[in-house]
């Protein structure tokens, strides 16, 4: 697939304008919004857009992170530092607290906690009475996302109802809700992975180092490179190898895999992304491969 040119034209100013417009609409329409901030690249882009929409130290919402307890330590450290730098309030709620309360039960100790984030997220919404959550999901990521609205209405159980979505006309968003309902709002819906990297390059947005090429111990398994961590141990008959890798997404350690790459900065990644032949989730997410409809199922349960 060399026909892809790294000079693909991407009109970042159009995308940026639309995203900022959506963020201000949330700030103007809702009483208690929050911005989901994980330290991942999409949420780092969201943070920069919020800076441009409102200015540093003037965000009309706190940042919220749902911590699975299986996040990469570098990402947690980065998250805390960035929140301070932009002078934003950061709220962290953890899946482990939900496990202590008994609202999350794992079927075995090393089960991925990624799907269980939904429970903790819904508990946080209840605790803070959030009426809108800004998320960094993109429609190019996955089939279910391609059909989701920018302002996605959730019922009082946090559920998405794909067949009852409100039509979105012009740029006039229907933000009306009943008590206990909320909205998930996706300002970068129309961005692709390529657009995100071009913007990171253009704006020099800081990211956790995991995103750039580094040496790491990995286990080749089912076509993926599984990082060696406490929660993803070596299985019998497997060999640990040291490879030069980078992460394309930095979610829960139990289900996030790096790819082999020498890309050491954003501009290298822009070039690599332009030539890539496997989709972001296909290459790096163990949980999305399990079932073709797994994202749709998780969304129905209240996932981002």
């Amino acid at each position, binding site marked *: 697939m060399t026909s892809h040119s790294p000079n693909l*034209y991407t009109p970042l100013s159009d995308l940026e304008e639309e995203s900022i417009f959506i963020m201000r*609409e949330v700030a*103007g329409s809702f009483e208690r919004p929050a911005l989901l901030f994980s330290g991942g690249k999409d949420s780092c882009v969201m943070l920069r857009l919020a800076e441009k929409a*409102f200015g540093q130290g003037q965000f009309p919402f706190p940042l919220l992170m749902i911590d699975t307890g299986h996040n990469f330590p570098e990402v947690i450290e980065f998250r805390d530092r960035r929140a301070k730098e932009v002078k934003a309030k950061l709220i962290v709620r953890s899946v482990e607290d939900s496990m202590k309360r008994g609202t999350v039960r794992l079927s075995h100790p090393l089960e991925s906690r990624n799907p269980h984030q939904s429970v903790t997220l819904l508990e946080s919404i209840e605790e803070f009475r959030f009426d809108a959550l800004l998320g960094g999901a993109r429609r190019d990521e996955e089939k279910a996302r391609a*059909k989701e609205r920018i302002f996605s209405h959730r019922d009082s159980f946090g559920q998405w109802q794909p067949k009852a979505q409100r039509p979105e006309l*012009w740029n006039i968003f*229907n933000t009306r809700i009943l008590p206990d309902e909320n909205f998930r709002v996706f300002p970068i819906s129309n961005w692709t992975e390529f657009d995100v990297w071009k913007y990171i390059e253009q704006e020099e947005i800081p990211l956790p180092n995991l995103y750039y090429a580094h040496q790491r111990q990995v286990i080749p398994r089912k076509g993926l490179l599984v990082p060696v961590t406490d929660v993803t141990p070596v299985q019998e008959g497997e060999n640990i190898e040291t490879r030069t890798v980078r992460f394309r997404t930095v979610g829960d350690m139990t289900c996030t895999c790096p790819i082999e790459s020498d890309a050491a900065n954003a501009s290298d990644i822009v070039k690599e992304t332009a030539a890539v032949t496997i989709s972001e989730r296909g290459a790096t997410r163990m949980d999305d491969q399990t079932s073709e409809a797994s994202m749709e199922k998780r969304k129905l349960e209240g996932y981002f």
Partner: protein
Amino acid sequence: MSSLQNKHTLKFLTAGSVDDGKSTLIGRLLLDSKAILADQLSGIQHKLADDESYDLAKLTDGLQAEREQGITIDVAYRYFTTPERKFIIADAPGHEQYTRNMVTAASSSDAAVILVDVTKLNWEDEVVDLLPQTRRHTLLAHLLKVPSILFAINKLDAIKDPDTAFINVKNALEKFISQANVTITNIIPISALKGLNITTRNADKHGNILCEKVYQGPSLLEALTALPSHVTSNTQEFHFPVQFVQKLEEAHDGSSTQHGRRIFWGRIAAGNVKIGDHLTVQSSGAKAKVSKIFANALQEELQEAATGQSVGLILDQEIDVSRGDWLIASTASVAGQKEAKATLAWLDDEPLVVGRAYWLKHGHRWIKTKVSAIEHHLNIHTLETEPAENLDKNSIGEVSLVLQQPIPVLPYNDAKDVGAAILVDTATNRTAGAVLFK
């Protein structure tokens, strides 16, 4: 190449009925522009390794519920990028809820590609009868003022005389648009299944170029690449809906106070603005001058700004302005209207109730409104008016509205962002109607 760098994203909708090959066309555009990645392709590659055997339509069936039923239930968005332009496809299913889906997709599209399935037509006759949905899709795109309308005559590979078919169908389309007073951009012969005349004027495996003798124009993608996508308004008068009011932190030396302490963010709905312009607040009538224009909150200052740009304005005086208000050029009429005539596309399952209060959102302002009378029903196959008592789901009417507060509307045909509104059911909060002011 450098001249292309100024091209904005082009958002276009695809309209067609089941079996017209719409999903195949979208799959083809994504495949040929390399927007489909290997893992996504493996999901649709169950037959042969031959390119033509990909079930291209499967790429666009998003939800499990849809795959089980073999239908498309809602507007989906797809992305592809060429070296020249970024494209967003709004894929509006044609078979059910067509008005709702078409109106939704058309409201924010720069172009509409209307698929015409030649195998369903009497193409051998000199006078070809167009299908009702072709008329319907064209007239809805026209009603919503989609800036460019293109016809793609599809499945020309499947008939024995594509040249004759193209000419006869093209004549029928031209006759129809001239009667309906619709301006279109292109009529293009294609085969979505075989990938002919989609990205380039290519030859098939026998070396033949589709309709070579009778068509000398661009491929579909070449035509789309050349289209304009500017936010335009016919009115020159500045209209700015206030989206978000921000209090600036006061500097220790008091410097920020000399320009007023509040910044009004919004997107310019019509006209231009420059420093020193006189503005009037709708609805208070208060007046002030523009003292600063910001591109964003990182304090990037501008001298002027135009339709479609989001900016922050600081005024020279402290006057009362809130979200939902409009800042309008003082040279324009800003009285606002308490009654208005509008075209109303009804989207909700429950029919419109005349005399009942609904929410109306215009710009960033929510007010209550009532439909006082349904003047006509609009036949979406002809755009002719018919007497009507009520307005059901997926129908369009001309109505009279009574508004709780005066709002500064302009005709939709002059300035979309000042002439459009949504109606919301006060009990269910469902988006019930699309309002296009006269």
